[in-house]
């Protein structure tokens, strides 16, 4: 068992004094239920408390703005899983980078919205909460972006520094704001932030912008025109590696060293001695670390310092060399006494290409599996994760996705997203889904239909049956026999269909008429689902035929119901009684054979093979018997006459 690296957070339960009472608790799928027991801390017991508290760790899934993050990233996730495996990996890299950018733009959109709400809200507590969420998302996007540069895009030496520069520029947007302010002022060159802007641009490697701003100063000091022209020239000539060109890394390196020598030469010549700012810029261009550190405030972070250092000292740095510079930059920049923040250790782990450490640290620092789950999944698709056996036998990606999806499933609405995540966890996803899907509350038929569709698409027949049974029972309880039958048909549940038919038949016996004729008359092929249902349909048909005075058809049907053993024995009495009016018709309906068969059925009934029901006394049986004999006699008479 790994050691816990951080102190667990304490959540106070309102109204509870731990010195007085013991607390009881039970784990839920995403939360804990906590209650005050009757046991006192000092021993003995006292009166109880009626409250049960629900303690939830993850507030984020209930935030309406963050919800968009979950939905949009779900869409991207599903699209990612559908990328075909058989494509060669060199075709896939741009796709993966593009997907990574999609994820990041979703984070940014969310962040912007949260920022707007944080600013506009009146409630101070909410403003703080939104502010916290914004900073977390900022950090998350920073980390993701770095992972994209280092792991997914995997830029080689040369391009690496350029990508890192982009990364830093994206996360230090205040420079442009300051620049706008300065340039919009009456006399930009005399603005107090003027040199900050110029130096910031240089530190970020944005030479063109730096030059544009410098021109303003140059215009003010015509006497120093030569000096400004010289610096402008140096800035303009700074070689930037262009990966598209045919220039090789070595060629670039030579060019760059040459240029650096030129800058150094200017420094030695004291060409900029009269203007401290210009001299500082020159020193920065040769990568003078002491001067860089003087501008700590403008750099504001150790990783900005790192990238600037690399730009001016080691622009051809290889990915494998990064970690050395990262560590030294961090040490140089940060106060040696201060403890590195979680974000710093995560970034450092990324520079060291220790993906697992990055994931582990992020999992601990964040209270929601969203970030690590999606990032790990993307890295896994890039084939960057070695199989890392956990105690539970599944791999890291699956573990994180299962955790994330399980958390989603506790949400009353987002559970639908979780289904797709489970689908893409090959080992345990199905089991998790089977267990969770049965717990979704089914308030309306429409929701039940959606859940059933999910189960049917995954051949989870057990769950389909159980859900249909729940809905059918509910329908039956409310006397909605048609609905109940519809559910039984969906589940192909013959037993339940039999139950429903029994209900109909009971109703008929009680009231003497059929209820819900629209259902029974239109059963169609569903009739074959269960014997009892077939009987019900056919019995109703018998009544219809009788009503239409098609007596011989009715008689044939009636007989077949008994002889084909479709009718339950308990109903035979009713059937025989139904035969009476047919027997008493003027014309002969039943043939001799048919009459014999009826008599046989009657005998079977009376002989004790099936007990006659108490409400059909022997008298009725006798009547039937007489009627049968009479009918037989008439038939024989008919034959003898002819």
């Amino acid at each position, binding site marked *: 068992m790994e050691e816990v690296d951080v102190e667990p957070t304490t959540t106070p339960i309102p109204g509870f004094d731990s010195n007085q009472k013991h607390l009881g608790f039970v784990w839920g799928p995403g939360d804990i239920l906590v209650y005050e027991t009757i046991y006192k801390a000092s021993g003995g017991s006292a009166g109880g408390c009626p409250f049960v508290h629900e303690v939830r760790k993850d507030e984020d899934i209930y935030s309406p703005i963050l919800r968009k993050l979950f*939905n949009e990233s779900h869409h991207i996730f599903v699209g990612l899983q559908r990328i075909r495996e058989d494509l060669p990996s060199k075709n896939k890299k741009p796709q993966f980078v593009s997907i990574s950018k999609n994820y990041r733009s979703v984070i940014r959109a969310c962040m912007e919205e949260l920022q707007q709400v944080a600013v506009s809200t009146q409630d101070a507590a909410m403003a703080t909460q939104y502010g916290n969420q914004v900073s977390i998302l900022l950090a998350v996007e920073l980390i993701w972006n770095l992972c994209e540069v280092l792991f997914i895009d995997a830029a080689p030496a040369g391009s690496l520094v350029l990508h890192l520069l982009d990364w830093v520029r994206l996360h230090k947007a205040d420079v442009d704001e300051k620049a706008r302010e300065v340039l919009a002022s009456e006399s930009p060159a005399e603005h107090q932030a003027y040199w900050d802007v110029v130096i910031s641009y240089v530190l970020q490697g944005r030479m063109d912008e730096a030059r544009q701003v410098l021109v303003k100063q140059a215009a003010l000091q015509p006497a120093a025109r030569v000096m400004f022209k010289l610096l402008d020239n140096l800035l303009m000539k700074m070689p930037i590696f262009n990966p598209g060109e045919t220039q090789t890394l070595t060629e670039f390196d030579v060019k760059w060293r040459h240029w650096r020598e030129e800058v150094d030469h200017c420094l030695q010549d004291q060409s900029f001695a009269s203007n401290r700012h210009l001299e500082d810029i020159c020193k920065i261009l040769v990568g003078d670390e002491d001067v860089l550190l003087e501008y700590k405030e403008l750099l504001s972070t150790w990783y900005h310092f790192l990238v600037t250092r690399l730009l001016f000292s080691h622009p051809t740095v290889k990915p494998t060399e990064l970690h050395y510079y990262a560590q030294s930059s961090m040490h140089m920049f940060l106060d040696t006494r201060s403890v590195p923040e979680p974000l710093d250790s995560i970034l450092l782990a990324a520079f060291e290409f220790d993906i697992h450490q990055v994931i582990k640290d992020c999992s601990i620092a964040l209270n929601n599996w969203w970030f690590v789950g999606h990032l790990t999944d993307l890295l896994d698709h890039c084939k960057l994760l070695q199989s890392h056996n956990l105690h539970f036998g599944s791999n890291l990606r699956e573990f994180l996705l299962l955790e994330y999806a399980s958390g989603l499933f506790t949400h009353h609405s987002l559970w639908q997203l979780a289904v797709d995540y489970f689908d893409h966890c090959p080992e345990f996803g199905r089991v998790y889904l089977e267990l969770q899907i049965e717990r979704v509350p089914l308030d309306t038929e429409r929701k039940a239909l959606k859940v059933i569709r999910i189960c049917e698409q995954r051949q989870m027949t057990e769950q389909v049956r159980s859900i249909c049974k729940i809905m059918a029972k509910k329908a039956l309880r*409310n006397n909605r026999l048609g609905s109940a039958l*519809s559910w039984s048909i969906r589940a192909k549940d013959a037993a339940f269909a039999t139950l429903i038919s029994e209900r109909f038949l009971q109703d008929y016996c009680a009231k003497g008429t059929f209820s819900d004729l*629209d259902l029974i008359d239109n059963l169609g*092929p569903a009739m074959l689902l269960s014997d009892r249902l077939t009987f019900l349909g056919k019995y109703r048909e018998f009544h219809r035929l009788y009503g239409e005075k098609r007596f011989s058809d009715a008689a044939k049907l009636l007989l077949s119901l008994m002889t084909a053993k479709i009718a339950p024995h308990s109903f035979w009495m009713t059937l025989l009684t139904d035969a009476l009016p047919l027997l008493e018709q003027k014309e002969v309906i039943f043939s001799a054979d048919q009459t014999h068969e009826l008599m046989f059925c009657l005998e079977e009934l009376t002989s004790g093979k099936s007990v006659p029901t108490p409400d059909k006394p022997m008298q009725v049986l006798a009547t039937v018997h007489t009627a049968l004999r009479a009918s037989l006699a008439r038939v024989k008479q008919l034959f003898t006459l002819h």
Partner: protein
Amino acid sequence: MMEGINAKYVSQKISKTRWRPVSSSSLQQPDIFATGSWDNEDNKISIWSIGENGISGLDDEFEGDPQLVCEHKHNGDVLDLQFLDQDRIVTASSTGAVIIFRHHHNSQTLSVSQLWERAHHYPCDNAPCTGIVCNSPEIVTVGEDGRIILFRADQEGVLRTIENADSSTIHDVTFLRTTEILTVNSIGQLKIWDFRQQGNEPSQILSLTGDRVPLHCVDRHPNQQHIVATGGQDGMLCIWDVRQGNMPFSLMEAHSAEMWEVHFHPSNPDHLFSCSEDGSLLHWETSSNSDTPSFLQGGRNTSIVSRSAIAPAGGNQSLISSWLTGDSSKGRLETTHMLPSQTLSVNSLDVLGQCLVCGTDGEAIYVNRRVPI
């Protein structure tokens, strides 16, 4: 066809979307639509605007995002939503209630104007109200309790109830004429009810002779009162002529899961739209551009075709609907997917003029302002 259709994520699963009606005389495109949510602890109905009506002909790539105008809490899932008129919306709730909301244009707020609580109910439990159709001021609702209820807006009580109209759930209802409605239920039957008759029996029952597949949606042809389209659990689209009895005119495989809504285009009924649990939204286009009216070109169901040939050749073609040829294999029926990629279930759609709006279980709304019709 797919340009200018972006998802707007709204943090609620959308169960219904409807355009606010525009007056038929004006050539304006609709700009306001309402949505209802479901499966939330706090459900809402919301009104959205797609901004200034674009000057037609502007080749603007950037489609305005729907902006939220106002919203109101809704007790229970919104299982159906219809505009009663320009100011009022009627909703069907999973609690069994029928609610009229009024949209106040000055303050841009919504308020509850009328409420019939437990209009649909069981003796003990709640019975969701599943469908509404309006013909201002009359409102007809249907529910899981198998009741059909007739209301009048502004009247407190119920005008008429048909008790136990159905032993299974009635999923949708539409007007055939001003006094006649058609309902579809979960045992695959279409029932026609005539309000001029007293009593609780339908005047006609139609159903497929095959399996009793539950039907979820129905829509009537805007010009021809005897033609309806239905969709159900198996995702098949059926076109019926209710005068003809027990066989639908066409049966087309549409979706791989439940079809939730089907709509004829109100002004251009050669176009039909359907959406489904399988995450797709289809646009069906039937063409009858040939010189010979399609019904005389022959096809599989020639006997049925000749029965419906009531106009002489070259006669008034509007009497014959191109949907009734029943022969989709002749290539006169085109189907296109309207959404750029697979999404979670598309629960609802509405189309008016050139504008299409739909809502999904992925908590997104899609608006397309350039539907090719």
